[in-house]
């Protein structure tokens, strides 16, 4: 039986982070993961992450995964893949299936970082092939390069539902509707706005009442629900689809912790059956820790910090780290975690309704109901007292209206035009005293794709709008297409006058379109003539 100082179960963001910290303290560390590839969900995340610069905001998830793997390798972490932990026994012994044999390993500390599994909800026809989890769709697309279907309906407007909807469109699927039983969008407004401007309609207070088809999904029926989430008869709507994606939450995969004998609780706010843990993830069994989604559903950035905290606590538990160093380093991580736990979407804000932002501006109800900002919202947020916005010459327009922990735009602008300040959840503010050069770094730095460069003086009667574009094929200069509004409605012809792909933009293409000047504050997306991206259900622009 092989022995280690630390065994980590799960090579996702949290498990790898824990292993790296522990190994750097001098511990011998083994990580077991049942998958063929390490990284957990990180390698499916092709979008840029939110957060602060210090915590890898604006970096795409899979890049963070690559960095973690390199760090783990450098720290001397031993990662076992296709290694399924089948059991955990007294005195920190684990049974692992490796290939065609069952092997035993023992450690003095164990960190369980097994993550979570997708929830399902039941409706007539939910077991038909074609009803899949949003995470499954993401795995098919982003790990295996397989399109889950042609026409997709997404149930769930949390960040998973919103992000995966966008990725489905990037993969060339048509998303016919985004549906949620809740009366408002659950995820970040900027994620919703990204898909609304592609023309995806939002159906809040709706749920799926039937998946149609005999051998596989051929359609779906949704119905409006009342305040008790009961479908209202007579409100059915039908869509022809071949795929139904469910993004209805995650449940911690905490069975190993229960098997080990940890005190468990069923906490709906943490996603279900979870262990009782202290602030560093230590369970009721000394030396046994839980980190990441398995001890409460959050997101990858928090999972990485919590993993690091557990790794350090495990090192201290075995004496690889003295108490003072432990306290100092944990204090830094707590500050970082705390900054991610602020704002409207913080774990402590779950279920709360915010009428105003921290700045005192009434939040956009349109964003919460339809996925996009209406004209009154733009007036309120863009022309607010604390920022002066130019209406001549090139300048940024920031359509970020919710207090979320994210600030890369501030550092992206070398001219100091964009200020977030010390409070990471504050809305970015434009300082017009500094002159914008139109470099576009702010657009590429915004994980929410909510920054645009507008120039009302591009040509007599015409404005230019530079927008983030993450679809293939990339538009070509000189191309003619259609300008779309925030709700995805066609506004008229748009000519591509510039296409930029700097390395610093990290795959976000900056597309500049020329539109009539009266559309300067309404045109926010571009749809090519031959429709590859920028889908829209509108037939007149589809040809």
């Amino acid at each position, binding site marked *: 039986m092989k022995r280690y100082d630390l065994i980590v179960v799960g090579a996702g963001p949290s498990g790898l982070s824990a292993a790296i910290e522990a190994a750097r303290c001098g511990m011998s560390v083994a990580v077991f993961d049942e998958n063929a590839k390490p990284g957990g969900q990180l390698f499916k995340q092709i979008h840029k992450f939110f957060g602060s610069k210090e915590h890898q905001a604006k970096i795409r998830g899979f890049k963070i995964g690559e960095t973690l793997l390199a760090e783990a390798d450098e720290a001397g972490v031993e990662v076992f893949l296709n290694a*399924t932990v089948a*059991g955990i026994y007294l005195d920190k012994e684990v049974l692992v299936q490796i290939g065609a044999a069952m092997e035993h390993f023992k450690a003095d500390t164990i960190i369980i970082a097994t993550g979570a599994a997708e929830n399902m909800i*039941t409706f007539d026809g939910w077991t038909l092939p074609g009803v899949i989890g949003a995470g499954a769709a993401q795995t098919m697309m982003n790990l295996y390069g397989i399109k889950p279907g042609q026409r997709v309906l997404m149930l769930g407007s949390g960040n998973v539902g919103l992000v995966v909807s966008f990725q489905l469109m990037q993969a060339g699927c048509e998303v016919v509707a985004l549906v949620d039983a809740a009366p408002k969008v659950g995820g970040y407004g900027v994620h919703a706005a990204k898909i609304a401007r592609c023309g995806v309609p939002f159906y809040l207070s709706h749920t799926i009442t039937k998946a149609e088809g005999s051998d596989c999904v051929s359609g779906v029926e949704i119905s409006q629900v009342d305040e008790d989430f009961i479908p209202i008869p007579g409100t059915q709507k039908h869509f022809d689809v071949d795929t139904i994606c469910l993004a209805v939450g995650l*449940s911690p995969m905490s069975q190993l912790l229960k098997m080990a004998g940890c005190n468990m609780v069923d906490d709906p706010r943490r996603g279900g059956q979870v262990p009782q843990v202290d602030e560093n993830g230590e369970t009721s069994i000394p030396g046994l820790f839980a980190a990441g989604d398995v001890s409460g559903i959050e997101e990858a950035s928090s999972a990485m910090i919590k993993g690091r905290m557990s790794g350090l606590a495990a090192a201290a538990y075995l004496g690889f780290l003295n108490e003072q160093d432990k306290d100092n380093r944990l204090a830094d991580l707590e500050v970082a975690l705390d900054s991610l736990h602020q704002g409207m979407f913080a774990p402590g804000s779950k279920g709360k309704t915010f009428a105003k932002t921290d700045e005192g501006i009434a939040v956009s109800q349109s964003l919460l109901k339809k996925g996009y900002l209406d004209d009154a919202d733009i007036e309120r947020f863009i022309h607010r007292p604390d920022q002066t916005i130019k209406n001549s010459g090139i300048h940024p327009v920031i359509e970020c209206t919710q207090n979320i922990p994210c600030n890369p735009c501030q550092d992206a602008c070398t001219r100091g035009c964009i200020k977030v300040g010390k409070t990471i959840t504050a809305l970015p503010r434009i300082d017009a005293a500094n002159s914008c050069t139109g470099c576009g770094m702010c657009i590429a730095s915004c994980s929410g794709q909510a920054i645009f460069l507008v120039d009302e003086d591009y040509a007599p009667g015409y404005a230019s709008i530079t927008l983030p574009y993450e679809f293939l094929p990339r538009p070509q200069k000189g191309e003619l297409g259609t300008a779309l509004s925030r709700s995805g409605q066609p506004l008229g012809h748009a000519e591509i006058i510039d296409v930029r792909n700097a390395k610093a933009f990290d795959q976000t293409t900056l597309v500049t379109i020329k539109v009539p000047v009266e559309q300067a504050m309404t045109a926010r997306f571009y749809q090519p003539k031959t429709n590859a991206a920028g889908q829209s259900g509108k037939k007149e622009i589809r040809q």
Partner: protein
Amino acid sequence: MKSINDRSQDIGPFVSQTDDAIIICRCEEITKGEIRQAIHDGMFTVNEIRRYLRAGMGLCQGQTCGKLVKNLIARELNVIPDQLDPATSRSPMRPVEMKVLGNEEVSHV
């Protein structure tokens, strides 16, 4: 003893619902109606439902239906899910072929 385990409590008669034919446990093809009926037959815990109907005993080991079954029991008994114990977790956590499970390294150093 949790009050859940009080078998003398009256949970009322089994009343059929329109969606009783919906499958809850996909692996073992157990319907909502079967699970609700089993609760009225006196199966008040997730473990009992597993043994009585095999719901949650298939390939995925209740990964998909575990929460659904628990919620069904909670609703029939009119309690919150936290008052119900989850299914016992025991090795092997994942499906393992018998020949692999038998191929166990036994040296204890």
